[in-house]
C-alpha cells in the first residue's frame, strides 16, 4: 500500500474527516493470533475453546506530508467497549520493523525488533511500544505519537499519527522509503487483551510517496 504525500496533514488527523473518503482503502485480511504462540499455558487453556480475534478485515489508508505520518485504520466491531471500570477497551495497533526481518506474529526478536503504536478506546490513549518478542513489549521512544478514534454503526475508525523522523529503535521513516506495516485489533467486549487479538498474518508493503 502507499502513503500518499499531501500538503495539509492536519486535516487528516480526525478519523471522520471527509478528506479520508477520497483515499483508497487497502483491505488487510486478519486472523486470530495463533493460540500456539500465546506465551503462557494458562492463556492457551483459557482460550483454546473460546473464539477470539474475529475481526476478519482491517481497512488501511495513509498519507504523510514529509514530516508527519497519518494511518487511518477501520475495522468491524459490533459492540463498543471503552474499558470502563473493570472492562477491557477496544484497541488497535500498527507495527513497523525496526531492523532485520522481524516475524510479525511473534512480535519480532532481539535481533529484529519492531516498533508499534497502540491506541486504546479508553481515553484515546496512544503509546509508543518497542517489542523484541512476545511478552517483551516496553515503552518505545517518543515519536510525537497520537491517536484518535471514533465508533459508528459497528465500525471503529482510528487515525494514528507520528513523526517520520525517529530514533533508530522507533522505525525512522522518510518520504520515498519502502517498509512494511502490520496491524492488530482487540475486541474489548470479548475480553481480548495482550496476545488475544486479531492480527494481519504477515507484513504488508508500505511505500511512502516521495
Amino acid at each position, binding site marked *: 500500500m502507499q502513503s500518499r504525500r499531501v500538503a495539509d496533514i492536519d486535516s487528516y488527523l480526525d478519523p471522520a474527516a471527509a478528506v479520508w473518503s477520497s483515499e483508497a482503502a487497502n483491505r488487510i485480511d486478519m486472523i486470530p493470533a495463533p493460540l500456539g504462540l*500465546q*506465551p*503462557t*499455558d*494458562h*492463556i*492457551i*487453556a*483459557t482460550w*483454546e475453546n473460546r473464539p477470539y480475534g474475529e475481526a476478519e478485515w482491517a481497512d488501511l489508508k495513509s498519507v504523510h506530508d514529509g514530516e508527519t505520518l497519518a494511518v487511518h485504520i477501520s475495522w468491524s466491531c459490533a459492540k463498543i467497549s471503552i474499558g470502563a*471500570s*473493570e472492562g477491557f477497551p477496544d484497541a488497535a495497533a500498527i507495527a513497523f520493523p525496526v531492523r532485520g526481518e522481524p516475524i510479525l506474529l511473534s512480535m519480532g526478536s532481539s535481533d529484529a525488533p519492531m516498533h508499534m503504536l497502540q491506541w486504546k478506546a479508553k481515553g484515546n490513549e496512544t503509546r509508543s511500544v518497542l517489542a523484541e518478542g*512476545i*511478552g517483551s513489549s516496553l515503552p518505545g521512544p517518543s515519536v510525537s505519537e497520537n491517536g484518535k478514534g471514533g465508533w459508528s454503526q459497528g465500525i471503529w475508525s482510528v487515525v494514528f499519527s507520528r513523526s517520520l523522523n525517529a530514533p533508530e529503535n522507533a522505525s525512522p521513516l522518510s518520504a520515498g522509503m519502502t517498509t512494511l506495516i502490520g496491524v492488530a485489533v482487540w475486541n474489548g467486549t470479548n*475480553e481480548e*487483551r*495482550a*496476545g488475544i487479538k486479531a492480527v494481519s498474518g504477515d507484513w504488508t508493503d508500505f511505500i511512502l510517496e516521495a
Partner: protein
Amino acid sequence: MSSKQVAMVIDLNKCIGCQTCTVACKTQWTNKEGQEGMYWNTVSTAPGGGTPKDWEGMGGGFRDGKAQAGIRPKQADFGDAWEFNVEDVMFGGDPNGTVGPMEGDPIYGTNWDEDVGGGDYPNSFFFYIPRICNHCTKPACMEACPRGAIYKRDEDGIVLINEDHCRGFRFCQEACPYKEIYFNQTTGTAQKCIFCLPRVEEGVATACSRQCPGRVRFLGFLDDEDGPIHKLVYKHKVALPLHPEYETEPNVFYIPPLAPPSFDDEGNEIDESRIPILYLISLFGPAVHDSLEIIKHERELKRQGGTSELMDVLISRNWLDLFGPFTTQPKDVARTLEGRGNA
C-alpha cells in the same frame, strides 16, 4: 522453587472470626485510592460463599501439571466498599436516624454469610477460615502472566507483582485458583498480599499474625526444624494446605478444626464429628483424617498429664514462639531505621 520459603500455619481451632487480622492488613496495606474494596486478608465463614463469592468454582491452578482455565473474579464478587451514613446519623440532627449503607443495600462482601454455616439443627456447624495469598511454590499467577511481571523471591519464596511491568491484563486473576489477586482500577494493575515483605525483611512478623488476639498464626521458614512451621507441617503432619488438588503447592497451611460430636435422632451423642469429615476432605484433602486423629491423640495425652510437643506448640503460651525468626518488635525497627536516617 526458591532457596528458602516462608510459610504460615493457621490454627482453625483458635480463630474466633474477629477480623482483627483483616483490619490490621487493611490499615497497613490497602488504604489507598483504588483499594477501597480490597482485602489482602479475609476471614470467611465455612461452609459459605467465601471471598470472592464462590471462588472455589472459578477454576485456575493445575491438574496433572497442566494449567487450567479460570474465571476472573469481578469487583462485585469481592463486594464493593460500602459507604455508611455515619456523619448523617451522628451529626445530622435526626434523632431517629439509623446507620446503614448510603447507596442501597450491598449485595455481597467479605464474610457475607457470617456464621450461617451448614448442617441441620442440632448438628449445625461452622468455623472461620482466614485466607491470604498462599505464596505458592508453583504460583499459577506467575505462570499465567505474559509480561513476566510476577516473580517469586529466591531468598524467602514470597510472590510479588512488579507493578511497573504489570499491564493490567489480569490473567493472573484467572489463573490463581484461590482468587487472591485484586485489580486496582486506579493504578490499572494487579495487587495482592505481599506477606508483609518490608516487615519480614526486618524480622517483624506479618501484621495479620502479630495482631491476632487468638494466637492463631504461626510463621517461619519451612526448613527451620526448630521452628513451629516445620514441626506442624512436617514433623507432626497436622498442618495441611487448602485445596491441595489445585497443585500450586501453597505455603499457607491449616490446622483443621475439631468439633463436638453429632447427635442422633434421639438426641444422643454419637461417635461422629459435628463437622462432616467429607466436607473437611473437600477442603484439605484425605490427609485431614490422619491430621485430626493425631491432634485428638496428642490432646488426650496432654489431658492425662503426659507431654506433647505438638500440644505445646499449638497452645503457644509464649506469644513470640509463634513467629519463628520474626520476633523483632516493630518499634525497634523504627528506631533502627531512624538511626540509618531512613525514618
